[in-house]
């Protein structure tokens, strides 16, 4: 790791910006993500912020089994995210395609798609259906540690 990369990683840890990609989730994971940013849990006080484009993001939050239609957009989003970045495979669906594993239209897990793009990618897994807000905050801490 050269000094530039170290500096970038140090910078990310102060205030990670998150871009959320829904790859066929059932909505519940997405709601819990928003819920964590709302007054009860308020993850924004740690500088975690949802942004509107992957080009501004440090963390790619992927919820849902990867369906056929969303595989290419997910690849594109990963491509567009400035590196170094972390990927969070969110929920049982993100980790393993969950209950939809055998679906005709489900192309596989988040890590398969991301690893095909970049074998070195940093991927955190947050199991749960949906993960509880406390688990999400703990996952955020672990993701930052991994960076």
């Amino acid at each position, binding site marked *: 790791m050269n000094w530039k990369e170290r500096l970038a990683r140090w910078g990310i840890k102060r205030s990670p910006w998150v871009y959320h*990609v*829904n*790859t*066929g*989730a*059932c*909505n*519940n*994971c*997405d*709601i*819990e993500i*928003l*819920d964590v940013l*709302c*007054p*009860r849990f308020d993850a924004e006080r740690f500088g975690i912020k*949802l*942004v*509107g*484009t992957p080009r501004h993001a440090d963390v790619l939050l992927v919820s*849902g*089994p990867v*369906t056929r*239609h*969303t595989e290419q*957009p997910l690849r594109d*989003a990963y491509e567009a995210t400035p590196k170094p970045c972390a990927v969070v495979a969110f929920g049982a669906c993100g980790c393993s395609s*969950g*209950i*939809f594993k*055998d*679906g*005709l*239209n*489900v192309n596989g897990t988040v890590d398969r798609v991301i690893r095909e793009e970049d074998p070195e990618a940093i991927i955190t897994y947050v199991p749960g*259906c*949906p993960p*509880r807000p406390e688990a999400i905050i703990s996952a955020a801490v672990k993701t930052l540690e991994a960076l």
Partner: protein
Amino acid sequence: MSKSPEKKVIPFGPYHPVLEEGELFELTVRGEVVEEIYWKTGYNHRSIETIAETKTYDQICFLVERICGICSHSHPYGFVRAVEDLAEVEIPERAVYIRTIVAELERLHSHLLWMGLAGHFIGYNTVFMWGWKYREPVLDILEEVTGNRQHYATLKIGGVRRDLEESKYEKILDMLDDVEEKCRMLLEAVPEDPVLKSRLQGVGVLTEQEARDWGTLGPTARGSGYDIDVRRDHPHAAYDWVDWDVCVEESGDVYAKTMVRLRENMESIKIIRQCIDQMVPGPIENEVREIPPGEGIGTYGAPRGETFHYVASDGTNSPIRHKVRAPSFNNVPSFEASCIGEEIADVLLTLAAVDPCYSCTERSLKLTPTSSDERLLTPRQLLEASRNKTKELIDQC
């Protein structure tokens, strides 16, 4: 005078900061005014109906819960009613009350969530934060009653999975008092708030005739003066044992839909109170040993309208066909009536006003022209055909 602005197409999605799910809208605009709307879904299609055909009836309850995260009581409710219709099962009274309590709590959390999101869409984030903050106690009660904040896993064919202990009644009633106060505050604040009023009134009007023509359901229809509610029209759960009103507003704009939802919150609270009051002791499930061959349908009044499930059984332990029709499937096409002629800034709000849920809507459908004499194969016949072909090939070599 400047010449009239030219037509442009503005794509909106599939990933857009305000859309939670992936879906694509293409708005054809002239200047600021939307002239045509084209929409494409399919990003969330997970082939749930096909997966359901490979699972047992008990497992499907968990699967249909995951059709949509917000309606995670509505879909299983539709499904268990379809199977109960098929197997002619009676539900114990206590179970019916518990089902209704969870159902109304879900409606409460869904409507508060929508209120928050609507605030977010018009850039009024205070409403967003407040709506979602007020939703938290509801989730707490749900956790208390069912064991999880979302995906409650309460329903089971023949009854419910968990009993509601009497020691919890007090706690639930206390939390309801708290939520009621906040819902009343919202109900009073929205008509008085000048920002909300000017932003919501007269936007995205869907007339009553259009609401009927497009077959809309739920608050979308009721906001346009179309008095339809499956909870009253085809009573199920405990809805005909308690006293409640169907909320209807006449004006058809986003404001009317907001008011319908806010008023429904108060009705939900009323229903839950009565259910707890009238709760009878007794068993919580009737054991179902066998599902006979046949067909069954189940409807349920979800927060967004009527959910419909159809189940066909051949007497084995998994269905041969399971069909789901979610309310958004009817409500989403009404965009073509309500968005045309709106300004582009209002379209987003109009889209959000029907509370669309795309993960519910994603069912694939095959249309065949009636004149075609092409052979149509069911998945089973297709499987059979492919097996025969393989056999032939093996025999040949």
